[in-house]
C-alpha cells in the first residue's frame, strides 16, 4: 500500500503530456463520437493510424497500452468469437448447425475489435498523460456553462478535489490500523469469506471514525477560512489554453473530414 498509485498517470514531458487537460478530454469525447462514422476498411484504417500516432506522441512504451487493454481482453475475445460464429452474410466459409462462419461475420468482428481497442487506447492516452487532479479540474472547467442552469459546479469540483486528496490519507490510515491490529494477533487473510468479512469490520470501524474526524476538522478549517458554498474562488492549479492545444482541435477536424470522405468508398 506504500507504493499505492492513484489512477494510471505516468510522469512524462511529451507533447501530449503538456497539452491542456481540457483539450485532451474534448479530443477523447470527439473520438468516441467520430468512431461511429467509420464503416469500412479505409475509415477504420484511418482511425487506427490516428490512434497509433497519438499513442506514439505520448512517448510511453507499448507495454503500458497493453496493460490498458488487458482488463477488456476477455470481452473482446468473447464478442469477436460470437460475431465470427453466428453472423451470416456474404460468402459462407463454413456451416455446421447454427454455426456459420461468413464473410460478414469476419469483417464485423474485425471492425468491433478495432473500435473497442482504439477507444481503450484513446482513454488510456488521456489517463496516463494527465494527473487525476487535473482531469477532475478540466471536467469541472468544461462544466462551467452549467452554472447558468444552477448546477453546483463549484461544489462538484470541491468534492472531487477533497476526495482525491482524501484517498492517500485513507490508505495510510488503513495500513496503520491493520498493522496495529496484526501486532495484536489479528489476521485478515485466513478463513472462509464470511470470516474474512468479519475480520475487516474491526478495521473499518476505527477507519471510518478517523475519517469522519478528518472530515469534520476539514469543515472547521474551511469555515475558519471563510469558505462559502457557491461563492467564486481562486484556484491553486490554473488551466491555461495555449496555441498547441488548438492544434488538437485541428487534428480532429482533419480526422472528421477524412472519415466523411472515405466512408463513401
Amino acid at each position, binding site marked *: 500500500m506504500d507504493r499505492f498509485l492513484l*489512477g494510471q498517470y505516468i510522469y512524462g514531458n511529451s507533447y501530449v503530456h503538456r497539452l491542456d487537460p481540457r483539450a485532451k478530454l474534448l479530443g477523447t469525447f470527439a473520438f468516441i463520437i467520430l468512431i461511429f462514422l467509420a464503416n469500412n476498411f479505409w475509415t477504420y484504417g484511418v482511425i487506427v493510424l490516428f490512434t497509433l500516432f497519438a499513442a506514439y506522441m505520448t512517448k510511453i512504451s507499448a507495454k503500458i497500452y497493453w496493460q490498458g487493454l488487458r482488463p477488456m481482453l476477455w470481452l473482446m475475445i468473447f464478442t469477436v468469437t460470437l460475431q465470427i460464429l453466428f453472423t451470416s452474410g456474404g460468402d459462407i466459409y463454413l456451416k455446421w448447425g447454427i454455426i456459420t462462419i461468413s464473410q460478414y461475420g469476419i469483417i464485423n468482428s474485425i471492425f468491433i475489435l478495432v473500435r473497442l481497442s482504439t477507444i481503450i487506447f484513446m482513454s488510456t492516452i488521456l489517463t496516463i498523460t494527465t494527473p487525476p487532479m487535473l482531469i477532475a479540474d478540466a471536467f469541472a472547467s468544461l462544466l462551467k456553462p452549467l452554472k447558468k442552469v444552477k448546477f453546483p459546479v463549484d461544489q462538484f469540483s470541491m468534492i472531487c478535489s477533497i476526495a482525491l486528496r482524501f484517498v492517500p490519507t485513507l490508505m495510510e490510515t488503513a495500513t496503520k490500523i491493520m498493522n496495529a491490529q496484526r501486532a495484536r494477533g489479528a489476521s485478515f487473510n485466513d478463513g472462509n469469506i464470511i470470516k474474512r468479512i468479519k475480520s475487516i469490520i474491526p478495521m473499518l470501524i476505527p477507519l471510518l471514525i478517523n475519517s469522519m474526524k478528518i472530515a469534520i476538522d476539514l*469543515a472547521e478549517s474551511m469555515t475558519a477560512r471563510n469558505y462559502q458554498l457557491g461563492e467564486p474562488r481562486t484556484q491553486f492549479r490554473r488551466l491555461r489554453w495555449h496555441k498547441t492545444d488548438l492544434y488538437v482541435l485541428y487534428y480532429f477536424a482533419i480526422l472528421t473530414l477524412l472519415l466523411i470522405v472515405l466512408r463513401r468508398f
Partner: protein
Amino acid sequence: MNQNVVSLTKTALVTAIYLALGFLFQPVSFGPLQFRVAEITNPIAVFNKRYVWGITIGCFLFNLISSPNALIDMGIGTANTLVMTGVSYLIAKKIKNYWTKLLITPFIGAISMFMIAAELYWFASAPFWITYGTLMVTQFAMMLIGAVLFGIIEEKTHFFRNENKTNS
C-alpha cells in the same frame, strides 16, 4: 460550524471511500464479469441523500481516471449509479425496518445493471442477456456484502446517520 460545509466534506469522504476501494481492486473492476468491490458502498445511500451524490461522484471519478473506456463508462456508469442509489434512497425512505431498508439495495443494484449491459452491447457488441446476467450476479453479490457490512457497522456506530458527531 457551517453545516453545509460539513455536509460537503462528509460527501467527499464517501467519494474517497469509493475511490480507495476502486483503486485497490482496479484490475477486476471493469468488463462484463466485473467484481467492483467499491460497489459495496452503494447501500450507504439509504442513510442520507448526500451519500447518493458522494457515491455517484466516486463512480464518476473512478471511471474517468481508471476505466479502459473512460468517457463511455463515465457517462453511462455514473448515470447507472445515480439511478441505483437515488432509487434505493427513495424506496428506503418509505421502509421502516432497518435491515429491510439495506437488504433491498442489492436487488435494485442488480436490476439496474441493464444500463451497463446496454453500454457493452452498444459499444462492444457484447450479447445483451448474457452480459446482463453476469453483471446482475456480481453486482448483487457486492452490494449484499456491502449491505451486511455497513449494516453491522452503522448499527454499532451510527456513523452515517449522525449529522454532526464524530462518535468519539
